[in-house]
Every structure is written in C-alpha cells, then in structure tokens.
C-alpha cells in the first residue's frame, strides 16, 4: 500500500508540474499576441489618457485671455496640503468701484496629491485637472506654478 501511494505521489506531482509548464509554455509560444508591455516613450502619439485623469491643476483661459476665477479661495480652503495659495488684489472698475480679483493663483505641484477636492470646491469651474503626467524637472522651484496667465482677467458675468 505504501508503494502504491508513493508512486501515486510521484505521478501526481509530475502531473501538477506539467500543468504549470503547459501554461507558461503556451505563453512562450504565443508571446507575440499575449504581450502586455506598453513601450511608453514610443507610444506617446497614440497614448490616450481618460478625460478624468488627474495630472495637474490648470486654469483654462479663453481666447480673450480671460479665466473664470473670482478669487473666492474655496479651493485654497478645500486643499488638505496647502497646495494652492491665492493672492488677491483690488481692481479699479471703470465706474470707480473696487473689485476683488486674483493677482496670482499659486499652485505647488510638488505638494499636490491629486485628490480633486479643489476642483469639486470651485463654484465657477475655473480650475480643472489636466491630463499631463510628465512632471519631472531639474529644479524644484519649477514645480511652483502660477496658473493665471499674465494680463488675464476674469470673464464678464462671473460672480
């Protein structure tokens, strides 16, 4: 009885090993079709990122160099890491009234964890996530970005 079990052990062991080898062997033979590698820098032209991908925070400007940010600092308050800093100034309106507007929208990419809370908090949809993801730079200071373009102003009709 011992001998029978012994031989059974050996045979079933060999069978299980052969099953595993069958799987890897199949993949070795079909490697052209089955490979999953993406050759990243080469496939840059065809690389499509989903529209919701959180790459970095950007502020879209329209053709008149106008943005939608009122400087309400809702994003600054929503941010858990103090990634956003809004510096405001007072614009003199044509009618002589002073109006609060952003001077600088400072965005620290190096602190950002891409949690999307600022985008959610923004009441005027002035900021959104861009699909860029190659953020490496040689100098850390390059990661501190000012999102509003120079000379830009708030779009008419946004309060």
């Amino acid at each position: 009885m011992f001998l029978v079990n012994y031989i059974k052990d050996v045979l079933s062991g060999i069978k299980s090993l052969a099953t595993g080898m069958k799987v890897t062997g199949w993949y070795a033979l079909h490697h052209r079709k089955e490979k999953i590698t993406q050759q990243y820098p080469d496939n840059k032209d065809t690389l499509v990122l989903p529209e919701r991908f959180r790459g970095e925070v950007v502020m879209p400007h329209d053709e008149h160099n106008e943005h939608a940010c009122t400087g309400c600092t809702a994003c600054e308050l929503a941010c858990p890491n103090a990634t956003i800093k809004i510096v405001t100034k007072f614009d003199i309106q044509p009618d002589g009234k002073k109006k609060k507007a952003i001077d600088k929208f400072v965005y620290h990419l190096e602190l950002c964890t891409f949690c999307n809370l600022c985008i959610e908090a923004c009441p005027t949809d002035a900021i959104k996530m861009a699909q860029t993801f190659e953020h490496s730079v040689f100098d850390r200071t390059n990661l501190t970005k000012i999102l509003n373009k120079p000379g830009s102003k708030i779009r008419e009709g946004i309060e």
Partner: protein
Amino acid sequence: MYRETEILKQPGAGEPDVFGDMIINIGPQHPSTHGVLHLVITLNGETIKKVEPHLGYIHRSIEKMCESLSFRQFIYVTSKMDYLSSHINNHGCCLCVEKGMQIEVPARAQVIRVLMDELTRLASHQLWWGAGAMDIGALTPFFHAFREREMINDIMEETCGTRLTMNYMVPGGVMVDVHPNFQGRVHEFIKHFKTKIDEYDELLTGNVIFQNRVKGVGYLSKEDAISYGCTGPTARGSGVSCDIRKLYPYEVYSKLQFDEVTETGGDCLARYLVRMKEMRQSLSIVEQLIDNIPEGDVQAKTKAVLKLPKGEYFSRVETARGEFGVYIVSEGGTTPYRIKFRSPGYSNLSALDHMARGGKIGDLVAIMAMIDLVIPDIDR
C-alpha cells in the same frame, strides 16, 4: 533602538544559546517584506526560534494628521494607509462621517461604492497572488496577475481619475458619476478574469512544490486567531467567521448573494484558498451589481463645511486584509478631536511570531506572503 542582549532576555526566548543562535535582521530593506518592515529573527540553524517585528520606518502619524484636517479632507489621507484597498478605507471613513451627520446616501451611490470596493478587493487580491507567488519563488505569476490588475486600474482611472489612491468617495456619496464606459469595461473584465482565474489555479494552486511550501506551514488555531485579533482572510483561514460584510452589513451588502469564505486548515494553504475563493465571490458580487445600478443622484446634498455633532462615532468595513475600523471623537467642530484607525495589518502581524516559530526561513517568507502585509497600513 534595540540591543541584542535585550532581545535574548525577553520571556519566551529561552536561555540565549551562545553557540547555536544566530540573530539576523530581515529588513528594513528586504525583497519579501514588501516595504520597510524590520524583522529581527533568532535562528537556530535554519529553524526560527523567535521573530520580532520592529515598526516605525514608515510612520507618518496619519491619525494625528487627520486631527488638523476637515471632515472632507481627512478621507483622502486614509488612501495612503492600506494603499491597495484605498477605496475601502475611504469608504469606512465616509460611513463614519455619514453616521455622525446622519446623511442618507442615495441608492445609486451605494451601489457604485460597493462595486468599487469589490473591484479594489479583486485588484488587491490579484497583487497579493502575484507578489505571494514571487515570495515563494515563482516569478511568472506576478506578471500574469498584473495583467488583470491593470484592467481594474484602467477602469478606476477612467472613472475616478487616478489608479491607486483614488479619493473617489466623499461624505454623502461618490465624487462624480461613473464613466459611461464603466459598465462595458467591467463586463469585459469579468469575461476576461473568469477564464484567467482558472489559469491562476493551473499555474500555481495545484503545483506540488507550492502545495508543499504552504501546506501545514504557519499554523494558527481558531483560538489563537481570535486572541491575536486577526481578521480578514488570515482569521477566516483558521475558521473564524469575521466577515464584516456579513456580520455587520453596510450599504447594499445585505441584499447581495455571496458566501463568507472560511477554511478550517489554519495554515498558509487555507489562507491562500480563502483569498482565491474570495476573488470568485467578489467577481460574483460585481456581476450581480453591474447591470443593476439604480438611477438617481450619486451624492446627497451636504453642506460645504461639515460639522460633526459632539460625540463618538465608530464604523467598520471589510478591506482586502481584514476589518478596518474608524473611530472619531468630535467636539462639534470642523475637524475631528481624535481619530483612531483600527487597521487589519497590525493585528495580523502580531500573530507572525506565533506562526513562524519552529519553521524555516522559507516558511517565514511564505507566512508573510499569505498574511498579505502592507507596511503603511501597519505603521500608519
């Protein structure tokens, strides 16, 4: 800092054997600790006499950090604890805040949350399968597991915007509705994974070398599993029924058809089988829900600034590794007064010494692989 003499003198280690014992440091940089875990093991030849985990290499004081963050903000930090079940961690925190604020989560959001949880669980178990096989010495399963995990990550990326630390769940529901492609891609994944999970079994489960490496290794009895506070597949492999989804159902789990997987072996093989079967159960949950997402809002109306009423709140969820508990003490302000997370990895790790004693170094690696340690979850 530890000194060798102190370790030797501790109770249970026995008298130091000057000629026979060898103390060896596994970690903080070691390929099979999956992070910066430091194990001081006392060896007699190759036989392990004692395992002593040293923690703190990746301690970021997340609990303290959360005290300075508002009730909307602290949720994202919890994704950085057990980064492989980040959705489920976020879910637990959201449940706790919702309990305090008495927010009713819309039905659609509930289903989406459960779907995301189960997909995360699948992704986590796939990574565990690949990485565990790699620890035991088979390198190919890792890449096969990543093929399926990549599909889930792509689904997550499309809907949530990120691949690993999503921050998709917010108090009151989920951040945005699922992507229009979501259902199609999940169907595609289910179809693909159903064939591949059988291939997983062919490649590894039945393999005689693998069976020998895990069978009877790292035995943990039912009593010990309870007394060490083990949860998740580690405890269920010892026959402890501890699935929070069944015992304290949250969201729509009470309406779903699924089994709590338990094995009575108590060894590494049992823990392995529990996880493999759990993958099939998760797949069946996803299948049940994917065509039945109710219409409606994905987020309840909440105030911009959440203020939890004064009091203490606790909620728990089942992550891929076990029970994750969130305990919030609120003084009525916008930030929590105190937060405590009960992470599954910490308790499971505490049983490591018990399981590994008397085994070989190879056994220790197999045990660690089958507990599925995630070090940031242990250290927080």
